[in-house]
């Protein structure tokens, strides 16, 4: 087993400060499975909104997150502290989101609920501002939506996005630019 940073030894008193990801992982690998709940809380708080907006549904997002947490747990032995846990986990999560989307994709539209095969009567559909916003970004391809959400909704800088996703700066800028073009086009019926 690799030597992880922050692996707490028995002869050191437990520290009162918040443990780092590496420290928590060390404890989990040493047998303290319950410690993994810290990772779950921490990364749910960090990515729940992102996953929900990416998939357009909180239910789907939680399923993807749950799946991602499970895979991350099973893969902890492989995770060698070579990179930040956030980046590693993020990639697992986006991969789960992508699989989920592929499973439920109908046609080229990616957001469920609006293509409900006519079973929903007109009165049942109440599109509030948020639903319209979600529908709108649902029209972006997943790669563009991903970067749009990270930059504009999660307020991450391009550098932070690069660190998280492993994408190059020009790829990130291109996706943001394309996403904005597409959104402008979709809203373009109401030109000023």
């Amino acid at each position, binding site marked *: 087993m690799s030597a992880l940073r922050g692996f707490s030894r028995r002869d050191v008193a437990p520290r009162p400060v918040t443990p780092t990801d590496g420290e928590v992982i060390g404890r989990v690998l040493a047998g303290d499975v319950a410690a993994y709940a810290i990772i779950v809380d921490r990364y749910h708080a960090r990515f729940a909104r992102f996953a929900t907006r990416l998939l357009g549904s909180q239910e789907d997002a939680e399923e993807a997150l749950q799946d991602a947490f499970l895979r991350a747990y099973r893969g902890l032995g492989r995770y060698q502290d070579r990179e930040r846990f956030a980046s590693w986990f993020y990639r697992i999560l986006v991969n789960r989101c992508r699989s989920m989307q592929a499973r439920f994709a109908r046609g*080229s539209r990616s957001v469920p609920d609006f293509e409900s095969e006519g079973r929903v009567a007109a009165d049942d559909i109440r599109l509030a501002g948020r639903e319209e916003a979600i529908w709108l970004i649902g029209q972006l*391809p997943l790669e563009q939506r991903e970067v749009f959400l990270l930059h504009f909704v999660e307020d991450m800088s391009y550098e932070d996005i690069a660190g998280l996703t492993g994408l190059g700066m020009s790829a990130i800028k*291109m996706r943001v630019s394309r996403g904005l073009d597409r959104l402008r086009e979709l809203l373009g019926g109401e030109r000023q």
Partner: protein
Amino acid sequence: MKQLLVVALLLAPTPLAGQSPRLTGRVPQPIVSAVVPLLDSARAAGLPTDLLEAKVLEGVTKGANADVIANAVRRLASDLGAARRLLGGGASAREIAAGAGALRAGFSGADLERIHAARGARDAAVAFEVATDLVASTVPVDTAARVVLRALTSGASDEQLAQLRMAVERDVANGVPAPVAASLRATLLFKN
């Protein structure tokens, strides 16, 4: 005044009212004069005039003048006739319409014949439509023809052809060059 007009239309032996009831009341007289001879000769040639009538109505709704509409009808009638000649007597109405669309998109008569032959006994309408849609997604005509033929010789169903189209449209929206998307998706979907 309107009532008198309606009565007049019913009573007067207009060629339109008898043969093309769909157009009655919606098409202004100058356009009627321009298209009736075209519709008559198409009908005499045994072509599906409902498509030609739809073209007239589309033109009227879009505010086109008599010359533009007549040209469009002439062109469609010519494509329908050519498609029917190429596909033979057993072709369905949808096949002929789809074949005409493919000719309009730039496929040659030889392309149509090859696709039709590759489909065997089954209806080639979806194959023609998918080929046309690929071209609409900016796939070059020869690439689209090759890709559809390859799919057909691998025994692709209509549903698989539709999947191919949707996948290519998604790829192109994501920035993949269209001919690359078409070739790759065909390879992935139809491994011989």
